[in-house]
């Protein structure tokens, strides 16, 4: 069973994502800010990280960089951003930093599941 780490500053949204993933038999972890997200990732080494792009304090890009620099495990773990932004350049920059996918907010459950499955299948 794969573990998904959800880093999202809005507790309700984080919880909803987790509920959804749990209903699909994933194990989930929640973090409500960037710093504790990075810590949880290092401690629990999830199989997938889903992270909000805009967060107060450490933002999504900083979280991604921190995880990618955290050794071989961090380089390989699939990383998806959740964002309401449609800014193409922001996405390009994220891709350049090593993000693997985007999940648009508000969620389309089917698209979300497609993305998660693709990301997890690719490395399983």
């Amino acid at each position, binding site marked *: 069973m794969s573990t998904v780490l959800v880093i999202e500053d809005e507790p309700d949204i984080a919880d909803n994502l987790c509920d*959804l993933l749990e209903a699909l038999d994933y194990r989930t972890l929640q973090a409500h800010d960037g710093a504790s997200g990075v810590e949880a990732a290092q401690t629990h080494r999830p199989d997938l990280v889903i992270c909000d792009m805009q967060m107060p304090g450490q933002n999504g890009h900083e979280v991604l960089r921190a995880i990618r620099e955290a050794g071989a495990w961090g380089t390989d773990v699939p990383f998806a951003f959740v964002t309401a932004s449609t800014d*193409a*350049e922001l996405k390009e920059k994220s*891709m350049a930093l090593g993000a693997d996918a985007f999940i648009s907010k*508000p*969620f389309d*459950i089917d698209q979300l599941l497609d993305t998660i499955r693709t990301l997890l299948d690719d490395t399983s």
Partner: protein
Amino acid sequence: METLPPEPSHESRRQEALHRYRILDTPPEESFDRITRLAAQLFDVPVALVSLVDKERQWHKSCYGFDTREIEREVSFCAHNLLGDEVMVVEDAMHDARFADNPIVTAEPSIRFYAGAPLRTPDGYTLGSLCIIDVEPRSFDAQEQAQLRDLAAMVTDELELRREVYSRKKVETIQSGQNRILEQMIGRAPLSEVLDATVQFVERMIPDARAAIMLLDRETKTLRASAAPHLPQSFLDAADGTAIGPDVGTCGRTAFQNDEVLTHDILDDPHWEGAHDIAREHGLRACWSAPIRGEEDAVLGTFALYFPAPYTPSETERRFVRQGARMAGIAIERTHARQSLRTSEERFRSLVSNLPGLVYRCTYDEDWTTLYMSHGYDEIAGYPADVFEQGKRSFKEIVVPDDLPMIRDVVRAAVNARSHYEVEFRIRARDGTIRWIQDVARPCFDDDGRVKWLDGVMFDITERKQTEERLRLLETAVNDATESVLMTDGELDPPGPRIVYANPGFEEMTGYQVEEVIGKTPRLLQGPDTDEALMAELRELLEAGEPFLGETINYRKDGSPFVNEWSISPVRNEHDEVTHYVAVQRDITERKEAEAELVRYAEELQRTTDALEEAKARTDRILASITDAFFTLNHEWEFTFLNEQAEHLLEHAADAIEGANIWTTFPEARGTVFQKQYERAVADDEAVQFEALYPAHSRWYRVHAYPFEDGLSVFFSDVTEKKRAEQALRESEEKYRTVVENVKDVVFRTDAEGRLTFLNPAWKETTGHAIEAALGQPIGAFIRDTDDATDGAEYDAMLAGEKDFCRYEAQFEGADGAPRWMEVFARPMRGGNGTVVGTSGTLHDVSKWREAEEQMRKALSKERELGRLKSRFVSMASHELRTPLATIQSSAELADLFMKRGVEEKTTKHLKRIQDNVDRMATLLEDVLIFGRAESGRLPFEPISMDLAGLASELIDDIRQGIGAAHTVEASGLDGEIPLEADPQLLRLVLTNLLSNAVKYSREGSTVRFEVASADEHVHIVVRDEGIGIPEEDQDRLFEPFHRAENVGSASGTGLGLAILKEATDLHHGTVQVNSVEGKGSTFHITLPRTRPDDESEPTREVHMSNEA
């Protein structure tokens, strides 16, 4: 059988991704060639390619061993490998069903072996392959495949690198382009320049596109070609005046629908019917047009892009067009706002500064066609104003033709210099008389720098001109007079009156130069033998305002004495106050000597008969030598002698009246000053001298009468002309003074050092400073600031004789400390040899105009403030509405999901979450609504007698229930009623905001304290928390709407709570005070009056801030 390459389902997005790299059709580059060379060597094949699969072709960025840059996509091998991530290997194409029929297999270059590793982008698109090709079949094992894949990754890295560099450059270009346009807008560049720059900016971003801005003409409801630097003029001429409608081209439809319109191919588009030829002629095939919108999305114009081939612009390109349209919209709106401000400002300025004159507006052309003319014109010209306004008569027709070229020159120069101008010219009035007109006007410019019209004021200065002319004549007369004429001011206190004018006669008489004596007192002529007693008498007379006539010994510059006869008359203003003195002096040394001698000889004549003949001869000689008339009288008042001049002046022959009684011969002289003076001289046996009007002759005579033993000798001369000149001088002086004292502008004069020597009453009215206190000080002493930061350097240059006038605006400090802006205009006054002996000028109050300017600035800053508020609102609302919406949406789906699965607990959780988030949005909307009402002053305020303790207890219970065990809320001071007059709804808002903020921004487990203390007139409410506190830099802006401190983190909020709280407290005439330390906690103090204030005074708006130590 040939198989066409399959197209991926996301082909169009893949194409877009490929185009984003901007690599197609670029020249070969070593960084890619290196990789194909390496691949060919590594795998020992003749050909290696970096191939990119475009819509209809396969294009080679690098080709090793193959000199074709592109082949058709139909025959492409690489196009078969756009889906997977695997290396595609074709060991022998002849035996592969997909390629066996392929012409590049069956014929040259006869490919047999192919291996291609996909070039896959980070976002998952395959752009093409790194492929190797051989003309012999061969195998390709897994290790080799891995190697090829590694090389392909290098190609991909190279592509990424290129794109990163490209996009950084693009971002820089975009930003610098936008910045330039914004700078232009801020710098108030003409609209046409800003629009041109906007068009060119968009053109730079989109290759092959030519852009055009069309502006909406509201009157004709058509579009006017405005900025399109790269479209041919003949096309623009055809497009100019495009109607707005559902069927008109692209732009006409855009403006009609207020929406973007795309014409993929103009030649296929029925809306372009009739314009196909002209579009084809100029090579315009596609058109994309977006509306330029202004306030409330009203259409201001269109922003269109034209392409040389049928084309649908990409989303990015559309974004640039929208951005361009937005910038154009801002520029147009700003220009409109500025224009309307300027129009009203101009009207205002014309009104304020030109009230006394006659206001007009006319065109700037050969005819000066009158656009507007205020009433009163008929008083000047005899023609009613509307004669000119309706074009029945051109104003030019009544100007004296000789003056026309001069006026044209002045106007042209002013237009070139963009300054206002002043011109004096003559007109022929309806009654045929010539009138002098002073015209003060300025050209008004439109945004493109063209003259819109001339605005001006005309004054009838005929009278002033005549006075000036008279003054000029008089001055010439005075200047040319052989007698010395001196003018002084009216100051009698020591050191005495100062000389303000001296004529050349004075120079000749005294040897002093005019410049030396200006500002000095006539005392400089006095010396040891000057009659002190007479001087004292002179002072007395002058103080009494009487004229003076007398003689005394004066001294020339070289020290030589002379007998000076003084005639001094005071000049009075309309209040009958003496302001100046006019002194006419004659050197009478010679005459005195002659007179004295004459008297001696006359006596001798009586005593010595022997000497008679000789004496008579001598007397005659002397008499002939003096020019004055002379006669003698005996004790019986009978004429005993008249000289020729006397015969002439008295109009009687000597032999006819010798022996006749003077009072019989001239009965009209009886009782006059003449009789009195003669009688006095005889009675007192003392010489008399006087000037008097002899009414019978209507002439003035200066008379010296000397008594002697046998009677009286009388010398007299006709001084009528001199008297009249003096009188006229006095009158003009008075007239001039009346004008000066009644004008609204301050009139001043200074000496050569720039110290004030004269100020008219307007000085006191305008600045409040006393005139007496200001005289003697430099004008700069009253100036706080100047317009051009030169601190009056121009003025100093003028004093130094380097300039002929100066004009600048200066801020004067009024006596009340208030600043007054005045326009200083001054000219130098020059002495006989051209040196500057002083200055004279005017101060024109321009404060009102300055104030108008200030108001304009304030309005603009208010506009900016609103803009900021709006954008803060939008960013708050987008976050604060999006989050609960996203939650509601996902919770709804989850509730559905869990309900279907029968997980009741989860279903309930999500239904509650939906409810909570709906509440959160409702609260937000409620806050916005209340704030909106507060901002527009419509917050209902209905105070009633109520109990604060009851309300507070109720709210605290609610809060406690809501938060459960997370926080402790302690309340004190709520035992018993606390009656006060307040609006319960507003008070509830205040308390709820304070309590919910205290809880929201505190860690779990902390305590919130609520205290109420009531005094006689006030209640004091304190809410203390141990929360995150407010950073110092945010405290000043705490009550600004939509402002949230930077440490709020993800706590939700609108930034409106405290703004509303402040409004509500203000309505109660209460105060809010905040003490806060970041990380420690915040304390809010609210003080409310217990009774409703009676007066309707403005509620207090002060916010007290302090940091807890």
